[in-house]
């Protein structure tokens, strides 16, 4: 590291030969994924170039309004993606958006008011990106768990209902299970930070020439914020969506598990 931040385009072009390794393996081993690999690489390049220019433009604008609009757009996209895992749950898109927005707003407020980060596009946007995508993954896991639990634990829920319990005490076990399952990936990755993985952000900072001691401070902040956001989002999403599994007569209804709920 000589402190330079930029990679020159020639080096990047040479590095791109690494893709050929993957293509050659696919071809020689008859994996049949050459086309997918090429499409993915092409998509990655095109999407990143577009995002790069957009971010450059937005960072230049330094408009809080625009930053906020972009955050909303990101949250909506994440909600849309998470909803796909919860097909069959009523108002799943609204619930997902509400859950992601709550988690993001609460976490960002703490970060901004504590002065950890500033409400400037170049800080807020990457940080929110991490928060939002983490919530998205957590929600997908929560929904999947709930859909399968409400199916496999029908007897338990109906037994509790028939003992006169309301729908919340009848499904509290399932709700807690789903929240827990949604949070496990974040907790697990926090546990192994620095041992198994040097997270992407920290690696990026170090590559960009920031001292490791400074970089870990950022990473610690990221770990805290991801934990708080996933727990808030999972909590909100699960408590809002369990009602979908019951009708107004407090009867358990069956939601058909869709094939694409893998």
């Amino acid at each position, binding site marked *: 590291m000589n402190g330079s931040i930029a990679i020159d385009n020639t080096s990047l072009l040479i590095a791109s030969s690494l893709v050929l390794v993957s293509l050659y393996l696919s071809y020689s081993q008859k994996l049949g994924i050459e086309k997918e690999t090429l499409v993915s690489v092409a998509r990655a390049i095109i999407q990143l170039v577009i995002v790069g220019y957009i971010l450059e433009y937005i960072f230049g604008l330094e408009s809080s309004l625009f930053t906020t609009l972009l955050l909303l757009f990101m949250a909506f996209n994440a909600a849309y993606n998470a909803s796909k895992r919860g097909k069959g749950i009523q108002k799943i898109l609204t619930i997902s958006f509400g859950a992601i927005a709550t988690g993001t707003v609460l976490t960002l407020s703490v970060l901004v008011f504590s002065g950890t980060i500033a409400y400037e596009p170049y800080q807020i946007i990457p940080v929110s990106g991490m928060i939002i995508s983490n919530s998205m993954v957590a929600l997908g896991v929560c929904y999947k768990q709930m859909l399968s639990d409400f199916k496999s634990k029908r007897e*338990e829920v109906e037994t509790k*209902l028939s003992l006169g*319990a309301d729908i919340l005490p009848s499904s509290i*076990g399932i709700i807690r299970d789903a929240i827990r399952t949604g949070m496990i990936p974040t907790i697990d990755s926090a546990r192994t930070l620095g041992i198994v993985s040097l997270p992407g952000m920290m690696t990026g900072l170090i590559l960009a020439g920031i001292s490791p001691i400074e970089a870990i401070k950022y990473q610690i902040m990221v770990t805290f914020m991801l934990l708080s956001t996933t727990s808030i989002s999972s909590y909100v999403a699960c408590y809002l969506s369990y009602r979908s599994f019951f009708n107004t007569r407090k*009867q358990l209804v069956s939601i058909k598990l869709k094939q694409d709920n893998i």
Partner: protein
Amino acid sequence: MPLLDLQNVSFVNDGKAILRNVSFVVEAGDFISIVGPSGSGKSTLLRLCSHLISPTGGNIFYKGVNMNEYIPTDLRKSIAYCSQSPYLFGNNVKENLDFPFSVRKMPFNEGRVKELFSLFNIPFTFLTADVQNLSGGEKQRISLVRTLLFLPEVLLLDEITSALDAENTRMVENAVSSLNNEGITVLWITHDPEKSQKYANKIITVEAGKINSLEVLK
């Protein structure tokens, strides 16, 4: 006024008619045995009466009021249902027996549990037993205790003696019969036509989703 009044009740699930135009009345104090071949719709009938499912056609009236007018949780406290496959949740027996108390926001009443345990010949040490280690018959009796901690007005029992030996079966039958004598209305699904005659004052025969006969015995 009849306690329960089923009028032209049908239940269709996924396009399949499980019950068709079932009508009968249950008077307060009745002890009704429900018999019929496997798959005829007996359990579905009791699930409808416990409001775990609603009819897709027709109406069920409880004390003259459509079931849909009641608060579901109140209704289910008053009409208790003990299912065909006893399900004990959580880790130990106590969790199960505490549940009806916590539903009513009441403290656990050990005295009441002791009373029912001795009625059903369950050693008191079972209170802390792991639910995984219980036999089928033990589970059946404990789930019955769980249902009876608070006495309902109507008791719906779905083959609750299927896993019990002769002695325990007799004991459960006697207990239910004495509850009936105290005024609790009982609807009991049984596979044993002989026994069904002994305690019941009416016998309903279900066949292929229809009521084939309603026999009044006493």
